[in-house]
């Protein structure tokens, strides 16, 4: 049903009639053979595994079927550490609607790209610390696991700075 926008932004003139629509789709994503194995290990044993490319020896997290650089299939699974180094990091202050809930995601929150010890690629994850002055590229971090693990990336609650 069409309606006037209820709360035009402050300082703006009424923008007139705008017709609303809520995109709302529930997905059932297949995890696939690589992610399924990764998350089972994470849930059952609290361990983090990647796959190695037999060509260049890179260890990939997330694990995947093909090493793009070698254009060849990946090979054996290898365990990596639960500690690593920050490759890039930020603290998000800008509020936005979380597409997974349809509501605003709470801010501030810290997140980083973290290269775990033994991995060649880096993983997105949350940081416990939200003061940008205390964060930094090159600092070491350690995974903090949740007591009850369900088999998702959030079985790791966040990464904690190591001194």
């Amino acid at each position: 049903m069409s309606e006037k926008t209820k709360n035009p932004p402050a300082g703006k003139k009424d923008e007139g009639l705008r017709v609303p629509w809520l995109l709302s789709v529930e997905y059932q994503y297949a995890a696939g053979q690589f992610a399924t194995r990764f998350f089972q290990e994470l849930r059952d044993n609290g361990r983090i595994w990647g796959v190695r490319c037999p060509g260049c020896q890179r260890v990939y997290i997330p694990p995947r079927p093909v090493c793009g650089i070698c254009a060849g299939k990946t090979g054996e699974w290898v365990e990596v550490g639960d500690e690593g180094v920050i490759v890039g990091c930020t603290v998000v202050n800008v509020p936005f609607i979380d597409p997974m809930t349809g509501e605003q995601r709470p801010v501030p929150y810290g997140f980083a790209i973290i290269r775990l010890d033994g991995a060649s690629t880096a993983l997105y994850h949350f940081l416990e610390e939200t003061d940008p002055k205390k964060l930094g590229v090159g600092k070491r971090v350690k995974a903090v696991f949740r007591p009850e693990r369900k088999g998702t990336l959030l079985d790791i609650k966040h990464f904690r700075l190591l001194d």
Partner: protein
Amino acid sequence: MDREVTLPAPEQVAILGAVQTRYEAGKPHQTYNELVHEVVDQLLAETGVALREIQSIVSASQDFFDGRTISGMAINEVAGGYLNSESKIAGDGIQALLYGAARILAGAYDLTLVVAHCKESEGQFHQITSTMFDPYVERPLGLDEHIAAALQARRFLSVAGAAEADLAAVSRKNHRHAMKNPLARRSGDFSIEHILASAEIVSPLRDLLAGPITDGACAILLGSPERARAPRRPVSWIAGMGSSTDAYWTDRELAASAALAQAAERAFAAAGIRKPLDDLHVVELSARYAHEELLYLDALGFGNGAAAKARLAAGDFDLGGKLPVNPSGGALTGNPTCVAGLARVAEIHLQLTAAAGQRQVKDARTGLAHGTSGICGQSQTVVILRGDAPQRP
């Protein structure tokens, strides 16, 4: 259009190979990235090409079905995209084939991988397809692809003077064909009565008159004439391509397809086809809904509603008939959005290279593949393929 849009000569772009997954109601064990890996891996093995030789990729997929913005990014590595040129079309895979052919004709690449993928099972068909509709006057009413197709079906029945039993005859033929296609999602020797008693989706559409929710992928390797000459296995050639766009669905006669007629005219002109019924040996149509097959046969010049019905009844369009239509079973038996049109090309390639197994049409040398996208077939594309040893007109 001031000029006809035609290919300069019929043997400049070859199809070196074509691979499809099995089409299934769901593929819960694979991500779409892994689906693409499966078809690309098999395609490269069959054509003897290494992944590192691929420098040009055109994919077709739909962000809303994939549940991901710029969903093409997930297939980069399995399709050979790292530091190479991948582009993504939001539309049917047959358009990706056209773009791939343009890249080869432009002399930019001697190989181009074309891939289409979709897992319809992962999202919600109603919610997703409703986003194609006018947001001001249509979405608030709850329209979706099935409802628009049902409106088109009723319109076609009325204008063409056809009966629901005629739609069932299309369904019967295609599901019987699909019994010979090991990749088919749905097949069976269904009676007309059984089809007309299948569950109502939106009347007059029934379960066996509409393509079911399906997961699958298709990959095709295009090559330059030099690549095609490398002695490996039989190839087919793109002999003509034609495309056209119709008006929005409420703004045209839904019982006809002016855009398909235009697309076909362009492709026939390019391929030197004057009498399609005689010159073509096999046809694969993207008709997810049974009425679309009759409607599209009409647009292709294979007879108005009545004539097409008579030919259908006479078995002309059956495997073994005069001009087999959808010997694979076609999209009605289950091909996902985005994949259906490219799958048609793959099927024609298999026919022309005598690799279609039990569904092989004897002595097929020239075939037509068709793809469509949008509400009630708004965008239409026709590709004419010829078998090896191209016949110069």
